[in-house]
């Protein structure tokens, strides 16, 4: 799993695939898909990252915008700190492996998110705490089928992914759309009954340090009409030098 911001797990996950048990397609095509998926895999990969972003959450109950700064190192460590609004400023989430801690500046305490709360939402968004830490490798757990291919410099790939029977994956099916230039367009997540659960879409592709990445993504839950969570990157840097002490509970307090 690649990390440049924790929430990117979601957008990264479905496109980080390896056709381990790929269906019977032409050898040449399989290699092509392999390369495509690996490209997407590498797209989000960096030994480390540092990003400034805004999160916009709209629900039927509330709407909120937050400015955040995020750092990541490797696949398992990341830190997100809220900068705005003032009420939440300083609140930070640390991910280390499968564990999640929240630092609450108002009470100056760090609390580990207990197992029972992992399915709860993260900072009022449509992402759950689990989304931040779930490290399931879709490449290991899914088999895929290509249902559409781009032709030349237009069109897109549509790849359907079904988890292996023994995989610990909550989704019944995942559909990924990838543009002809290997940029992610959308990822749809279905439950085990085949009903759409959430849709992630990507756009605003920009070139950062020589690589093209989507700077905007939007998550729309299928069962809540009108609701969404949007992430927009103001800036992102890859392979930055970060001290590993940054990803400790002590550092959470800043």
């Amino acid at each position, binding site marked *: 799993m690649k990390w440049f911001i924790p929430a990117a797990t979601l957008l990264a996950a479905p496109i980080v695939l390896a056709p381990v048990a790929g269906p019977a397609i032409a050898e040449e095509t399989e290699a092509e898909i392999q390369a495509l998926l690996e490209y997407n895999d590498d797209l989000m990969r960096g030994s480390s990252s540092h990003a400034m972003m805004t999160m916009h*959450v709209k*629900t039927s*109950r*509330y*709407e*909120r915008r937050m400015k955040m700064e995020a750092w990541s190192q490797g696949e398992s460590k990341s830190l997100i700190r809220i900068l705005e609004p003032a*009420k*939440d400023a300083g*609140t930070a989430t640390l991910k280390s492996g499968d564990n999640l801690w*929240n630092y*609450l500046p*108002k*009470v100056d*305490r760090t*609390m*580990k998110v*207990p197992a*029972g*709360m992992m399915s*709860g*939402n993260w*900072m*009022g*968004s449509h992402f759950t705490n689990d989304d931040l830490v779930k490290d399931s490798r879709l490449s290991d757990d899914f088999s895929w089928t290509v249902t559409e291919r781009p032709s030349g410099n237009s069109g897109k790939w549509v790849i359907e992914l079904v988890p292996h029977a023994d995989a610990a994956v909550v989704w019944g099916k995942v559909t990924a759309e990838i543009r002809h230039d290997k940029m992610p367009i959308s990822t749809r997540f279905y439950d085990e009954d085949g009903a759409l659960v959430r849709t992630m879409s990507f756009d605003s592709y920009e070139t950062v340090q020589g690589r093209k990445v989507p700077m905007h993504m939007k998550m729309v839950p299928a069962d809540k009409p009108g609701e969404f969570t949007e992430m927009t990157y103001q800036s992102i840097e890859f392979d930055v030098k970060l001290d590993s002490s940054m990803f400790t509970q002590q550092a959470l307090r800043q």
Partner: protein
Amino acid sequence: MGSSLTSMAWRNVQRQKRRSFLAALAMAMGVAVTMSLITWMAGMWDNMEVAMVDRLNGHFQISHPDYPATRQMFDAIEDVDTITAKLDANPDVTAYTVRMYGAALLGSDERTEGASLLGIIPSSESRFQDMDERITRGAWLPDEPGPQVVLGSGLAKRLKIDVGDELVAVSQAADGSLGNELYTVTGIIHTDLPQMDRTVAYIHLQTLSELLALEGRAHEIIALTPDRQMDALTPIVADIHDQVAPAGLVARPWWEVDPAALQLMSMRGVQEWITTLLFLGASVIGVINTMLMAVMERTREFGVLRALGMRKREIIQLVVAESSFLGLIAAVAGGILGGLISWYLVVHGIDMSVGGKGWEMGTVTIDPIIHGKMTLRGFLLPAVILFGFCVLAALWPAWKAARLNPVDALRAE
């Protein structure tokens, strides 16, 4: 029934004074005991109703229509002050309190545990539940809003925390933010509901509303009226409902809030009947015996009466009349005796305290001394039923007497 038959019956009752007296006495005792039991149970039932209805759920509740089912933080009463102003102005509302419910993570220095937060207004909540009486350590919440929190004993144990310690509360607030506050444990509460003690923390309504970003809102208003009975309460609640409906709220009477309580309360009448039938049924067996004896030993007499031209129907009427006299005497005597015992139960009551305290039902206490309650029904039911039983019990002996062949009867010894 002719008056001659009546006076004959009355004379017959007097012929065996001792037997009549004992039979009537047995029945009078039955009436007295039944009456006293009903009086006593009525007192118990009233106490139960106070505990289960008035104190726990109030006579009616106001809430968002979806809240009872969803228990969703967002399904709230939006403008509490407007609603309470209406209640203040309503002469039918004698008391009310406002509650808010929330879920939070509570963290001590050692542990973090999920808990239910119950936001209350201590000064008006005391009219309902007596949580202040269940404090085993420390103190109950002060009337003024503050950072104090009272923990259930099981919850305090899970958190390894004690009175005076600091406690962090983190909760998903209504505005999407992560509400977090620092509180102080001011008391530990212990009720007879361990499940509740393991999960519930009590806090001032205003303090909780700040944590949950629900200022000015609440989830439940519970209120009392002068009368919890259905016929009196229904129009009052309907009126309140019309007043709160424009604000998107509902007012529900206690029997809709807690149908199980209503079911329990409806057992009251059944219990009175069962008690009456059981106790009086026993004494009526004595009446059957008495009347059978009275008929058997007077076989010759009935033969003479038949020979003199008395009809079967009149024989039956005679025997039934005799039994009815016994029943009447028993009902009156039993009524007087039962009335006296009931009066004692009403005035003095019976001390049912457990270790000097009343029965505890969760956060509600039943009075330690239960006073009886005299009701017209409790007074009339045993007397009327006994009289009816006496009439019915005489039918069989009466039929036996009427069936006698006059010739055979006259030959009988």
